[in-house]
């Protein structure tokens, strides 16, 4: 793993990325010659209409998918050159994912859900417990550790999802519509939390959203339309 870039150096470098999906005989060009640089410590909002390729771009940055052409580099690591196994280990160490539908495992309690990424580390049980307690404390859910997802509100479930994303202290947080399934009040609380993680803990965050209210919380917003990025909203 390359050294971490200096503060305000480029953490995410998407260079000339193209993504084509094949459906039968048809090629669907989702992203075309896309360039994006995200400095370390930035809170970036990524907006665009449905089907514009926001989630696809997020997947490429997070190493969940591979570009058809171009390269994705995170902290100097060329992600698309890693093998599947290396990529899994890389994601475990460097990426925290926050999903729209929380994606918690319903059979596990909040603390067990948050512990999941730590199972892939060499931490002892006591150390894992300590990390989980810290992460749940950061999201304000220290009193709900033994609850299952069905016993939590949508906002609380998303907080658990954020705790799971930050428990390994990742380099980059990727949030796919984190407030998309929440009411305004709960959504605001989640945005407050993400803002605090960015400002107080220096986390670099890329957030996909439809909601201008949410994007207003980010330091910068870019717009994706027909596979191309711009700094101006889509007309």
């Amino acid at each position, binding site marked *: 793993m390359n050294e971490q870039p200096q503060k305000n150096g480029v953490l995410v470098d998407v260079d000339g990325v193209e993504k084509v999906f094949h459906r039968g005989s048809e090629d669907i060009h989702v992203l075309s010659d896309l360039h994006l640089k995200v400095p370390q410590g930035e809170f970036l909002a990524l907006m665009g209409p449905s089907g514009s390729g926001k989630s696809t771009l997020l997947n490429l940055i997070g190493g969940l998918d591979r570009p058809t052409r171009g390269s994705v580099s995170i902290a100097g690591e060329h992600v698309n050159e890693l093998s599947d196994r290396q990529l899994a*280990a890389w994601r475990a160490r460097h990426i925290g994912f926050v999903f729209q539908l929380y994606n918690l495992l319903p059979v596990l309690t909040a603390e067990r859900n948050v512990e999941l990424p730590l199972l892939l580390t060499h931490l002892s049980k006591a150390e894992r417990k300590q990390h989980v307690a810290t992460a749940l404390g950061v999201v304000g859910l220290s009193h709900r550790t033994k609850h299952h997802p069905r016993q939590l509100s949508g906002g609380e479930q998303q907080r658990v999802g954020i705790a799971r994303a930050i428990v390994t202290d990742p380099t980059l947080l990727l949030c796919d519509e984190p407030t998309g399934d929440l009411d305004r009040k709960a959504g605001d609380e989640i945005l407050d939390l993400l803002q605090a993680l960015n400002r107080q803990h220096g986390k670099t965050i890329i957030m996909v959203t439809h909601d201008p209210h949410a994007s207003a919380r980010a330091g910068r917003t870019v717009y994706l339309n027909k596979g191309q990025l711009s700094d101006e909203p889509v007309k």
Partner: protein
Amino acid sequence: MKFFHLIWCNLKRRKLRTLLTLASVFVAFLLYGLLCTVKEAFTAGVSMAGADRLVVRHKVSLIMTLPVAYKARMEQIPGVAAASHFTWFNGIYKNEPKNFFGSFPVEPEHFLAMFPEYSLPEAQKQAWLKTRIGAVIGRSLSERKEFKWKIGDRVQLRSPIWPRKGDQPWEFEIVGILDAGKKNVDTSGFYFRYDYFDEGRAYGEGLVGWYAVRVKDPDHAPEVAKAIDAEFANSPSETKAETEGAFMQGFAQQIGDIGTILVAILSAVFFTILLVAGNTMAQSVRERTEEFGVLKAIGFTNERALAMVLAESCLLASLGGLAGLGLAWLIAAGGSPVPSMLPVFYFPTKALVIGVALVFALGIVAGILPALTAMRLRIADALRRQAA
């Protein structure tokens, strides 16, 4: 071990489905254990048969008798080390047909020398030699709950085959208890002195049921058997000599090929159970497509996803299977439900080990296809499926 909690919780996700699958696996392995026990009960004689022993019976049928004088002639045949005779007495206690057990008049010293797998304390042996009506009984017979016989007890038997002169019951005094070094040796027999029997029976003096013959070299047992049959060819009582193992096998096969029946039943049971367990695992993985996507997104490798599903499948199989094997073992340890018919009744260790191997084989075979599905699942596809 740190993944055990996750695997265990996944198994509890659909409790009813898991319980029904567990019950199916449990019943299958309980059946396996009991069938192996019954097979052993029918074929124990084959496995305990001495390689250096022959059984010599009447050529026509086992129920026809042979002269007692054959013993001396057989011992003259080259290759024969010793001979000892037996007769099927068919003794019944208190005239109750259910109080039936194997009972045989024998010559004590020759009998004990012929079957070293039985042990009898020297004092009890001497008591048998001194007591004309003395009988020694096997350990399992002495422990039958309807008898609870002990040394010193006097026992009266009647035999529908060999009535006593004057139609009196045969009277015996128990002077010894036979033990066996191995659990597959039948200790349900009742042995008493031939001289007492021969003088007391109403007819058939000088006749015996069959002979056990020890050969000097087990490698030459077939040649010795031929020599014995040749010795008595063209006599009023021609013989059929065969190894003890072949004799026992033929005896067991009178009620059918137990091994083939067992394999046929278990094949059907295991095939069905494989479908049940495989379907459970396939459904379980299909329901969790998005969860596998999330686990992989946070860093679980494809191989780890495969291992988790296989571990879950093996846990499911082992919970049900080992419980089934355990109960079968307990039932067998409780003793034969029909000691008169199946005196040797235990779950063989070899069958238990094979059963444990089958448990894990079931887990792996039932889980392999769902595990491969989980392994090959692409993260983006799994998460996209949820969004759709």
